[in-house]
């Protein structure tokens, strides 16, 4: 078993095929989309493959340490990173092929006109915490 992150973000990949911004959809289309995402997560729970799914607010602050005894510095949001990550799902599956299959299904979520969005999702394997039995020589 291995865990994968299905990451929905807007940097680096080409545009989705059905690339109409959500605020241009009809309310019914939005409901259909939300329903699809919920059903997808429910289905993965039933197959025993669901770990986590979260959406993120589009904007956040940038924070960094500013030295002993000083409060952290906050800044941003910076224009170039706006809307970087919209959300993610974490799955626990037997094979990489299964992770790709599920990402493909998630990318088929309906958008404008009730048609699949075909958006690009990034599939990233988790690093396991422990090494397996084969030791480094």
């Amino acid at each position, binding site marked *: 078993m291995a865990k994968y992150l299905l990451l929905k973000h807007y940097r680096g990949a080409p545009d989705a095929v059905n690339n109409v911004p959500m605020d241009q959809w009809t309310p019914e289309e939005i409901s259909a989309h939300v329903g699809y995402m919920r059903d997808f997560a429910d289905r993965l729970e039933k197959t025993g493959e669901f770990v986590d799914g979260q959406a993120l607010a589009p904007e956040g602050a940038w924070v960094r340490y500013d030295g002993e005894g000083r409060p952290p510095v906050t800044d941003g949001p910076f224009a170039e990173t706006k809307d970087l990550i919209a959300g993610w799902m974490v799955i*626990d599956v037997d094979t990489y092929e299964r992770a790709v299959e599920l990402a493909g299904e998630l990318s088929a979520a309906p958008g404008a006109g009730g048609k699949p969005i075909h958006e690009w999702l990034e599939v990233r394997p988790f690093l396991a915490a422990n090494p397996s039995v084969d030791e*480094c020589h």
Partner: protein
Amino acid sequence: MDEALLRSLTPSVLTVLVRRGADFAAAEDAVQDALVEALRVWPADPPRDPKGWLVTVAWRKFLDQARADSARRRREDRVDEEPAPGPAPAVDDTLQLYFLCAHPSLTPSSAVALTLRAVGGLTTRQIAQAYLVPEATMAQRISRAKRTVSGVRFDQPGDVATVLRVLYLVFNEGYSGDVDLAAEAIRLTRQLAAAIDHPEVAGLLALMLLHHARRASRTAPDGALVPLAEQDRGRWDTASIAEGVEILQAALARDRLGEFQAQAAIAALHADARTAEETDWVQIVEWYDELARLTDSPVVRLNRAVAVGEADGPRAGLAALAALDDSLPRHAAVAAYLHERDGDLATAARLYSEAAEKASNLAERDYLTRQAARLNARTRD
């Protein structure tokens, strides 16, 4: 409370219910409910006869559920409250349970989960924690697994090899959360070895014991990976090594070699060396040759290249490595190691960085990054 005792009783309680006529899935649920209740009740009120207690409670849970089910169906089917006298078991029931839970129709993750619950007696919550998934997900994985094997007859003979693969997967998962899966895998393999006389079962048990014996020395206090050559051999568990070696020797004497026995033989040769320098690499290469013949696995050839590098020098190791596909996991790590031993520090550093990027786990990545940093610092001087 003795949780180990409780867990060791699981397979026999489950098979009692199945022999009384309960179907496997329902019996397994009932036993799980009984285990959860035992965990709650036993600390304050330990039973005199733990197995009897579990059978009674599990049977009652089964009847309650069966009654609820039939009431829901509004059918007149009356569940017989008296235990039906089952036929005398022809083969060891515990063994059948292992076969069922590792049935080839199950995916590896389902087989692992079902084995840990039905044979190991772990609760769904414990299994979920060990594999870092939500409890609801693990519950579904287990119930799907049970549906998958629902048509399989309980007394059908199975393949030991599939059971061993499942147990090896559990062992490899190691330790996370409050359940020690490596120790659990050893317990389950030991129990299997008691139920069936098979050299590969013995081989796997020996392999696990020999690896487990080194666990304390395998990580530094800060969690960093310690490679075999640098481990403090004084911290190896000698009792576990002695037991592993004894089991292995008895298995090898049967002259039915298999991959787990060969792997255990390699582990035994490492365990046998008082210092890393005393390691009998020539014999280890011979065992890797046997292993390559038995499994034809590219990972085995990769490990063999390391052994050749130790036995015949780094150039020979690199020559062995050159014959292998460089997209193999850990190929770059092995190349880095052999180049360092050959004195080519710049190439070794570059390959260690490359290997770190490809590492599939955190401890290994950190180790490889540290190796690259160490060599980069040396080549800067």
